[in-house]
Every structure is written in structure tokens, then in C-alpha cells.
């Protein structure tokens, strides 16, 4: 049933966000530490486990896949409710700081990617 998939997905998200909040408090940070990432790992673990023990029915998978497919429209809605005015009108310093941070980070991607690759080839 579709609801099984939706419930599984919801359970993973709640468990992950809860773990992220607890982790944040343990570290003394006022933020969620990787809650969504933990939820993703949990979903991957549960769905892989189920391949061996029992099979998720196609309908159940549909409950998860629907939300996966809704990802882009949700991101579009997210873009449409950003505070773009604040970003654009806050003066040059904030804009330059943001742009410079992005440029520096983009530039690091090929460097780091090569590092990881090299390590893998050597191993």
C-alpha cells in the first residue's frame, strides 16, 4: 500500500531529525547536525535490508518515489519564497562576501575530486 511507503519515509525523516537535534545538543550547538543526512542513510539502510529479508511491494515503493519525484517542484517553490530582496539590497559587502565564498568553493571542487580519485586508484 502507498501509505506504507509514505510512512516509512516519514519515520526515517523524523528519526533522522531527532538524532540530528540530539547530536546538536550533545555538541553544544544550537542547530540540527546532519538530521536529513542521517534520515537518508536510514532510508537507504532500511530499503537495502528489505531487499534481502522481504521485498517492498511496488505500491509501497510508489509512496516513496512520488515524493522523490516531487523534489524539483518543491525546490521551485522553495526558490519562489526566498528573501531575494534582502540578498540583493543589503549592500555590496554582503553580496561580495557571498559571491567570493561561492567562487572559492566552486574552484576547490576539481582539486578535491582529484584527491579522492587519486587515492582510489592507488588503493
Amino acid at each position, binding site marked *: 500500500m502507498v501509505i506504507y511507503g509514505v510512512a516509512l519515509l516519514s519515520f526515517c525523516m523524523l528519526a533522522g531529525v531527532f538524532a540530528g537535534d540530539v547530536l546538536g545538543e550533545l555538541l553544544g550547538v544550537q542547530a540540527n547536525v546532519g538530521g536529513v543526512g542521517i534520515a537518508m542513510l536510514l532510508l537507504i539502510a532500511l530499503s537495502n535490508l528489505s531487499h534481502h529479508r522481504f521485498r517492498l511491494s511496488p505500491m509501497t515503493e510508489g509512496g516513496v518515489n512520488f515524493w522523490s519525484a*516531487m*523534489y524539483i517542484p518543491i525546490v*521551485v517553490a522553495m526558490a*519562489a*519564497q526566498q528573501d531575494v*530582496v534582502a540578498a540583493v539590497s543589503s549592500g555590496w559587502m554582503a553580496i*561580495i562576501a*557571498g559571491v567570493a565564498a561561492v567562487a572559492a*568553493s566552486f574552484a576547490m*571542487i576539481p582539486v578535491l575530486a582529484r584527491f579522492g580519485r587519486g587515492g582510489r586508484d592507488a588503493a
Partner: protein
Amino acid sequence: MLLDTLTEVLAENALITAFVFVGILVWLSYFLSGKLTRGRLHGSAVAITIGLLLAWIGGSVTGGSRGLADFTVLAGVGVMGGAMFRDFAIVATAFGADLDELRKAGVVGAASIVLGVVLSFAVGALVALAFGYTDPVAVSTIGAGAATYIVGPVTGTALGADSGVIALSVAAGLTKSVLVMVGTPLVASRIGLDNPHSAMIYGGLMGTTSGVAGGLAATDPKLVPYGAMTATFYTGVGCLLAPSLLFLIVRSLL
């Protein structure tokens, strides 16, 4: 009278209205992408850009801080694009992700998070210095804002920065997130962002969940789970490092 009734129906069913609105927006974007750019600029990149443009118009017209969602009729866009549904959909994309790819890129992915936080913080702090800020608290808060718009205020509040500086740090983070959304598909091929391995590094270096979510959606939706996985740890690591270790380094240098 008819118009009032319509407005009422749309406002009362806000989330459903958002589904129709976003559906039309996405359709229009894919149409434009096909006709004007022959698909070279991906439909979702067009949709995200139009979304940001509409958010700017919405913010300018209403004076609010939630873009289009500040129009009563379009309040549902705020629900649909809010953190709850965003995170829910991100988690869903992990379904079917390749466990081996995650394992292989695990170490370098984790390293990219720490490097990403330090790099953005350093760049932001240098820009603040260049603009004449010398107070370690202000410099650290703006540097933290260059990490993400959540790390900025968390750091600023922890260090006791004044609200003007905190607002600047949020603006720096917002600029970063908007730029990552729009810029990623444009530079993707040049920086080798076409496989799960580099997507994980990308997520760790950029860190802004909304920026990474939008940027990868517009580049290659298959890469979303890998980038999102590392990106969601970034804000936590940033909130951990910026007000403590990184602030202490800034204070000892100034």
C-alpha cells in the same frame, strides 16, 4: 463578487493552489527551455531562476521576507517550499542511491565539509576586513554568514554581535544560496560535477542545503542524494566551528 469568491477559495486551499501554481510554472519553464535554449539550459534551471525572480518581485511588492508566499493567495508556496517538505523530498531522493558510491566518497566527502566551512568563513572574513571591519566578533559573524545564512546568525548570537552585523551575515548567506542555485548548472561541466563522487564533494564544499538542492536539481537530479547527504551536515559543523575555534583564530590574528 466572483473574484472575491475565487480569491477566498484559493486562499483557503493554499497548498492546493501552490500545486497548481508551481505546476504551471514548471510547465512554462520546460516549454521555454525547449523553445528558447533547445534544452541546453535545463527546464528545472529555468524554473528555479523564474522562481527566484518571482520571489524578488513578491518581496518588492509586499515588502515581506518570504517572496511570493507573502501574497495571501500564494501563501501555500511557502508551505510547499518550506523546510518540512523540502527535507522530506530530499530524504526521498535517497531511495535508490548507490550505497557503494556513498562509501567510496565517504572520507573525502567528510573532509570537504570541514574544508568548505573553513574556506567560506575565511573568504567572508577577508571581505569583511577589506570593508573596514576590525572587530573580531563582527568579522567572525560575517565570515560565518558566508558559510550559510543559518551559521551566520547562530554565530552572531553566540558572540553577541549587533543586529546590523547579523543582518549582513544573513544577506551574505542568502546571496550564496541564490548564486549556487543559479550558477551550478552553468559551471557544472567545467568543474567536473557529473558523478556521485564530485557531487558529494560539491555538497560538502557549498553546504547551503537550499542552494545545493536547487543547483543539483537543475544540473542532474540523479546527483541530488549525494550532494544533499554531505550538505546537510555542513550547517551543523559550521555552527560548531564558527563561534568556537574559528572565532578564537580570528581574535588571535586581529
